[in-house]
């Protein structure tokens, strides 16, 4: 019951991130940054995404905003 509710909310958040992301901007980035932004779109985890990018969370968050990926929470 609880797990189903969370699964639905996760799916909804992922849909919003996918729809609003600036994919042209994301595709133009170097490989590590591009992979990290795509990970963020799919999972919404700022910490892990920043580690993939090799950036601090602060730096990655600013990149997230440039890529127009909303933080859905």
């Amino acid at each position: 019951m609880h797990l189903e509710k969370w699964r639905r909310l996760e799916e909804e958040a992922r849909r919003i991130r996918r729809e609003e992301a600036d994919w042209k901007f994301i595709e133009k980035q170097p490989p590590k940054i591009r992979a990290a932004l795509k990970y963020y779109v799919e999972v919404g985890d700022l910490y892990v995404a920043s580690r993939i990018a090799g950036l601090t969370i602060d730096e990655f968050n600013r990149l997230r905003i440039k890529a127009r990926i909303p933080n859905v929470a």
Partner: protein
Amino acid sequence: MDFAIADTCFLIDWSLWRRRDAIFELFKTIFVPETVMREVVSADTIEWITDALIKGVLSLFTETPDILEEARVLVEKSRSIPVLRGVDLPEAICLVVGRRRGYIVLTENRGALMITDILEEYRKVKVWRALEVIANLIKKRLLRTRDPTEIFNEYERETYHRFPRGELEVVIDELRREVGEVA
């Protein structure tokens, strides 16, 4: 007034909002783990945090080995439940401190909310996102507005955030009932 402990994803987003200082009226102090401090690099955010540390409205929280160990156990537990969004060490530290010391946990990580919903030993931990923080600021009239929607919209614009629509509607209805039009 309660104590709170903030993780990085909350603090970094919150620091981009023009009304960011309002949060200091809500808590005795907000603890910031050392792991969070290491993640902040932008001049404006560092200045804001430093200023708040000087005023004593933010305080540094140094993680002890036993807190770190319990947080690692929590990370493992969160990864062992299918569907549950795993938590990482920074949020796990905040949840452990929330459970042990009764601090309100400030985070935008949905995994932290899931933990308090699913794991019995974390049920009593209060987790607030920007949604709950803003709602409480309005309820306590620390933010005054004719229409709460405007405040939430402003936060979304300035931090590039999206509140889940269903939850936002519930919160706004509740605020309108409780507070009415606050000029």
